[in-house]
């Protein structure tokens, strides 16, 4: 009766058995670090012991063969330990500088780019997309693969003014998160309702409550209980789709991609910021999404050229101003860039300070 087995509620496991012995010995006792080259961190502890970390990019969605290959590398070079960063990079820790070069050579030979540290463009934080999500308007892994192929050079070197965090999201909920650059789906038409299915599949009051602009109300359509949308009020957020799939928001033509810039989570120098819309209406164009890549590359080039050391993308724009940003990146500024959501007045320029 294995079927009736009760789970053991382990919760969050103890990390100590998994720490590289050097990290375990010097836990909480690190003194300083520097970076010997892109992809290599060097940390020194109060004990005088040092650890070298080699960071490499992965595809995040990994087959067991890839994971075993990474384990083989860890066993051969890094005492059988490895870890992953919040941006899906893999890290190997070694206890001698002489072990760094062979490890890098092995990683590169097996196709894992070494980098992602310091002032680089790190791996893109992303979502599940068509591979696994139930509400995606686009893919995640494919967009990321396409972008990282183009940004590979910026991953393996540290030539940006500061670190660059890019994210992608397959719907407007934005599970990919805030980023210096965020590539997010932007729905452009209200949902098309399949009235035959609403009564069967949806808890109507919950759907009504989910709408951020109160544009949905109960209705009877063709004699069946359903929902209707005030299409003038609808902001096409897609929030009604997860609780009610008959509110079909995804559309091969009208689900577009938008690009946002200037999100930053650290409290370093400036306070954390949210990313801002800079481009919309980009076609959802698999398998390589070239129109998205073109704009991302353009934004990165302008930032790389003009950003001063340590300036994150939001801080760079904060200095040069949005007029200059749109000029440098040759992107149009439209009425849709002017916020009209709650708190929007705080984003208006209530001053006589202007950029010319």
């Amino acid at each position, binding site marked *: 009766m294995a079927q009736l087995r009760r*789970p*053991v509620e382990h919760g969050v496991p103890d*990390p100590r058995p998994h720490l590289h012995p050097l990290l375990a010995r010097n836990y909480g006792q690190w003194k300083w670090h520097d970076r010997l080259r892109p992809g290599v961190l060097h940390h020194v502890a109060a004990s005088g012991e040092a650890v070298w970390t080699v960071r490499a990019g992965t595809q*995040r969605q990994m087959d067991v063969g890839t*994971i075993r290959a990474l384990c083989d590398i860890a066993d051969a070079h890094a005492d059988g330990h490895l*870890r992953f960063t919040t941006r899906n990079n893999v890290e190997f820790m070694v206890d001698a500088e002489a072990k760094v070069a062979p490890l890098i050579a092995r990683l590169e030979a097996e196709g894992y780019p070494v980098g992602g540290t310091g002032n680089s463009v790190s791996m893109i934080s992303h979502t599940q997309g068509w591979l696994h999500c*139930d509400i995606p308007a686009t*893919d995640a892994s494919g967009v990321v693969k396409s972008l990282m192929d183009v940004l590979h050079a910026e991953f393996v070197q540290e030539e940006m003014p500061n670190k660059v965090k890019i994210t992608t999201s397959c719907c407007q909920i934005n599970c990919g998160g805030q980023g210096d650059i965020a590539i997010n789906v932007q729905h452009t038409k209200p949902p098309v309702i399949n009235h035959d299915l609403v009564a069967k599949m949806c808890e109507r009051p919950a759907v009504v409550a989910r709408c951020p602009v109160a544009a949905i109300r109960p209705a009877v359509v063709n004699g069946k209980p359903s929902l209707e949308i005030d299409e003038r009020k609808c902001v096409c957020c897609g929030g009604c789709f997860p609780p009610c799939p008959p509110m079909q928001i995804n559309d091969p033509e009208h689900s577009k991609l938008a690009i946002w810039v200037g999100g930053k989570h650290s409290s*370093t120098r400036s306070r954390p910021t949210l990313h801002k819309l800079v481009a919309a209406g980009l076609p959802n164009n698999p398998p390589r999404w070239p129109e998205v890549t073109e704009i991302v590359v353009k934004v990165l080039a302008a930032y790389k050229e003009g950003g001063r050391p340590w300036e994150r993308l939001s801080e760079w724009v904060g200095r040069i101003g949005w007029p200059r940003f749109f000029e440098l990146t040759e992107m149009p500024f439209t009425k849709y860039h002017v916020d009209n959501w709650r708190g929007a007045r705080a984003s208006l320029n209530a001053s006589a300070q202007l950029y010319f």
Partner: protein
Amino acid sequence: MSKEMPQTPLLDQLESGPWPSFVAGLKRLAAAEDKQHAPMMKDLLGQLERSYQTRRGYWKGGVVGVIGYGAGVIPRFSEIAEEFPASSEFHTLRIIPPPATHYKTDLLRRLCDIWEQYGSGLIALHGQTGDIMLQGCSSDNVQPCFDAVNEELGLDLGGAGAGVRTSVTCVGAARCEHSCYDEAKATRIVVNAFLDEVHRPSLPYKFKFKFSGCPNDCANAVHRSDFAVFGTWRDDIQVDQDKVKDYVAERGRKGMIDQVISMCPTRALSLNDDDTLEIDNKSCVRCMHCINSMTKALAPGRERGVTVLVGGKRTLKIGDLMGSVVVPFMKMETDEDYEALKDLAARVIDFFAENALEHERIGEMIERIGLVPFLEGLGIDPDPNMVIHPRTNSYVRTDDWDDEVAKWRARQAAKATARAPQAAD
């Protein structure tokens, strides 16, 4: 006769290029004819190629779980199962990793063995929730797969739905000199206190904890967690002036001024004529910039603890919110300090459970009711560190102003006594 590999001309284009290809991995799993997952992954590739052709997703949710838990499995059923029957059920098991996702290879290898036996062979390290994502399991295999992971590996299912979620923890004390508390310990003490809410969700909506060791926030806590814990310090930045001089010698005065001194957000830094650093610690906001830029010379102070921000979340439904300060400083040294953090979390979750509307995040609840009622519910006193600036609108009733002033004075007096016990003698 084995199933044929599907034609995937669009996905094939994602095999080239210098970045590791997820498509190549999917194909390896599909081509492993001696493994049970080969047919499933062939149909998965077929369905994914269809999505690339039509620009539509074909998964729908449902109800799949394991005995004893109400969350942790993300059910996925194909809407075009008749065409791709072998991957018609492609559920995800969310597995809680060790904090900061350190692994002995032995654990990952055993996980791969189990997953190869029961699932698709596809694993995301890691999902945006912070979990190990075992992606692609049939309904029948979910329970035996979980049993193996739970019993043989000592790992547990993560959160999903309207409950406490799996956490994210920065690398912290394990390998970072900026760490201001034991992030992994805090993660385990706090999250493991709410396993009932992780496994049997019964909150108004999801609730996420994230733990960053310093204000650099490598765990993305401010944007992505309802309860964000940041390491910080209350005394002065530790300075090694000889090392400061080394940096000045290396970078030059201009480099030092442009890249360190002038970038201090509160103008708390000054370069002395002898190339040492003067810090106005009372004006320092603990932003980390000078410490980041001179790791050998500067370090956080010795009186360390945490700042707690509440209310961060992503876009759905009222727009993005960042967490805001609810507890400016809690000492985090003794076991009792960590227990106090857990107790604070319990009070926050209780208040959330009692007062949030259905499907309302705690940040949205605070937006609706205001920060002060939330603080009063928790018994936390208002503090100027909770605001960017005081109220600007004069439309406010101040009926018991004198009482509130008296409370503030009493708190200030108590603090002064606590900080300077000798002075009272």
